[in-house]
């Protein structure tokens, strides 16, 4: 794999680390700019990009901090380049303000968070999933966001490509919310031939300069085509509330309403296109486990033990965490006796599950503060309780 003559897509079968699979997925998706700052357990993404991007005609730069990284990514995207950064908790916090700038300016790009235990410096080398709510709400103001949660190196490769495509389709930053286990795990990764990889190109305006309005959205569409710097359109983009011309419109709420409503609707009203879920054994299930990322993977063993005890348990794995699959969970909640939600935080996504289940069934949280994966017997006990079995305490 260190053969530098290979450019672009390295089709083939590899034994590959999750972070590296993420970088390779980005390159396959057409990413040619990476601006980042080293942080465990995301550093390998930057390292790999620093080696690979120059040989595929891309640009790598290590910025001075994560505020700079996020902004450099936005700038590169506005220069017409597909761009990405990767970080972990502390850096993710530093990126929040400018993630909002990306959302407001409608800038396609990808932000990877290889989560570790927090808060603060927390557990730099150990797993966590504690940034899931920050991913949804971390920047100030109202908006909607897309966040994907891979649970294997293969999936981090696949979902990084999907993230770039979603970013272009909806003109927005997309989050890949992975974790230290998946990022540092080494497994088989299959990279398909280039012609089997779907790539969504940037949609450019066809209207001549003078007629084109950078934020005019045609009826039936959700986003405007995107002219970038140097295209001759002399565009203006701002983090201020703006009108269709892209000009600040801050005197009252007349531009705020349509803008913010559209920024939310373009994601929330396209849930069917965006949301990916994986179901396993739910057809006959009396108990459902709902989880994501590494926690969904480690739930499989206790689920097998529960099945061996005669409990019909199935898994709903959230490949897409945001936007949240309300409808699927509401429906599932009407069919089972209980839902178990293991996640490596003290109970974040379980709140959303409770909200979506709307009281139709009991929802049991299996928390973990980070630093390791779940004790399988804790998940098993929760499944037993959900099934109405007696559990010794």
């Amino acid at each position, binding site marked *: 794999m260190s053969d*530098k003559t290979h450019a672009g897509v390295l089709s083939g079968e590899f034994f590959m680390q999750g972070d590296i699979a993420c970088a390779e997925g980005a390159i396959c998706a057409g990413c040619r*700019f990476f*601006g980042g700052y080293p942080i465990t357990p995301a550093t390998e993404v930057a390292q790999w990009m620093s080696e690979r991007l*120059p*040989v595929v005609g891309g*640009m790598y*730069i290590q*910025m*001075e*901090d994560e*505020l*700079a*990284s996020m*902004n*450099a*990514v*936005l*700038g*590169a*995207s*506005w*220069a*017409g*380049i597909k*761009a990405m950064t990767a970080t972990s908790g502390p850096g993710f916090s530093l990126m929040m*303000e*400018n993630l909002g*700038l990306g959302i407001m*300016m409608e800038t396609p790009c990808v932000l990877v968070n290889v989560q570790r235990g927090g808060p603060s410096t927390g557990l730099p080398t150990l797993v966590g999933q504690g940034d899931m709510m920050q991913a949804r709400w971390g920047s100030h103001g109202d908006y909607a966001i897309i966040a994907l949660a891979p649970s294997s190196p293969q999936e981090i490769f696949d979902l990084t490509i999907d993230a770039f495509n979603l970013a272009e389709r909806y003109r927005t930053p997309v989050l890949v919310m992975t974790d230290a286990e998946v990022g540092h795990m080494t497994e088989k990764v299959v990279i398909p031939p280039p012609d089997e990889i779907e790539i969504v190109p940037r949609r450019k305006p066809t209207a001549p300069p003078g007629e084109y309005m950078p934020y005019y959205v045609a009826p039936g569409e959700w986003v405007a085509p995107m002219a*970038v*710097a*140097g*295209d*001759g*359109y*002399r*565009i*203006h*983009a*701002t*983090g*201020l509330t703006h009108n269709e*011309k892209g*000009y*600040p*419109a*801050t*005197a*009252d709420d007349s531009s705020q309403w349509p803008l913010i409503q559209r920024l939310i609707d373009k994601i929330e009203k396209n849930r069917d296109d965006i949301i990916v879920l994986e179901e396993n054994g739910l057809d006959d299930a009396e108990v459902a486990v709902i989880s994501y990322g590494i926690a969904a993977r480690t739930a499989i063993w206790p689920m097998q033990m529960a099945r061996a005890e005669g409990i019909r348990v199935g898994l709903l794995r959230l490949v897409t965490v945001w936007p949240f699959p309300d409808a699927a969970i509401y429906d599932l909640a009407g069919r089972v006796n209980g839902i178990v939600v293991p996640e490596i935080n003290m109970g974040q996504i379980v709140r959303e599950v409770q909200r979506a289940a709307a009281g139709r069934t009991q929802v049991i949280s299996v928390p973990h503060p980070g630093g390791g994966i779940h004790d399988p017997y804790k998940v098993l006990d929760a499944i037993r309780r959900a099934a109405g079995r007696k559990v010794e305490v």
Partner: protein
Amino acid sequence: MGIEMQGYRLDKTMEQHEEAEGWVDEIHGTHPMDDLLRTDRLPHIWCPGCGLGTALTCFLSALRKSKFDLDKVVVVSGIGCTGRVAGYVRLDSFHTTHGRAIPFATGLKLGNPALKVVVFSGDGDLVTIGGNHFIHAARRNMDITVICVNNFNYGMTGGQAGATTPVGGVTSTSPYGNYEYPFNVSALAAASGAVYVARWTVLHARRLERSIHEALLKPGFSLVEIISPCPTGFGRRHKQREGLDTLHYYHEHGVIKHGADPRETDIGLSGALVEGKFVDLDKPTFLEQRSRRLAQALEK
């Protein structure tokens, strides 16, 4: 009904101004800079007596003289009164977040090296909240031109102290006089590796324009520091109630010293205000360094 603000009568609120479209000055007609301005955004929000109009005019004249393909020129601003420049120029322009214009500009330049990228922003934006990006872009000799309007305070938010406020400077957050040592913007750029550093007050408009022209043509990280009146936030607290009072001050205290050691050009509340071209040297830029290194390394 007009509103009274700082003793001036305004016929429209700033917001009404912002909303006004296709505005033509009834007395003066169109302006020679109109083709470079988003005239549908005029009039601007700046106060009477503010130096920003002169700073912008000098930039636009220099840009015109530079003969750059204007479709390839990008202006990036942060937040502040100066930060509004990006919204007024008829060029590709980005109004980013407070302090972050330089890293955004870095991404633009590296994303498309054919662009001429100019950062136009305030002192608070560039060297206080954004100081880290400023020194690192200079260190890398990143291929951008930075125009920093230094009015010694945060104009936009009502005249607070920042990292450029001279010792003793009275602002809305240093009511007893500032007791922190300030940054010298030009010296900071020079010490960090800038290849071109010049400082002018807006009174020295022709020299300022010439320096901006030189900076635009200079490969690598160039800085032009513009000393500019902010009567609303700073001047009126320093016996300079009107912008014109500050220009008088520049006239009396300005001392032109080309090639001065930037470390000896600190600005106080009184005494000489040293201006001129302090640094003009040649050094491979970030992109040149990168190309050379990669060519060597990847050849093998």
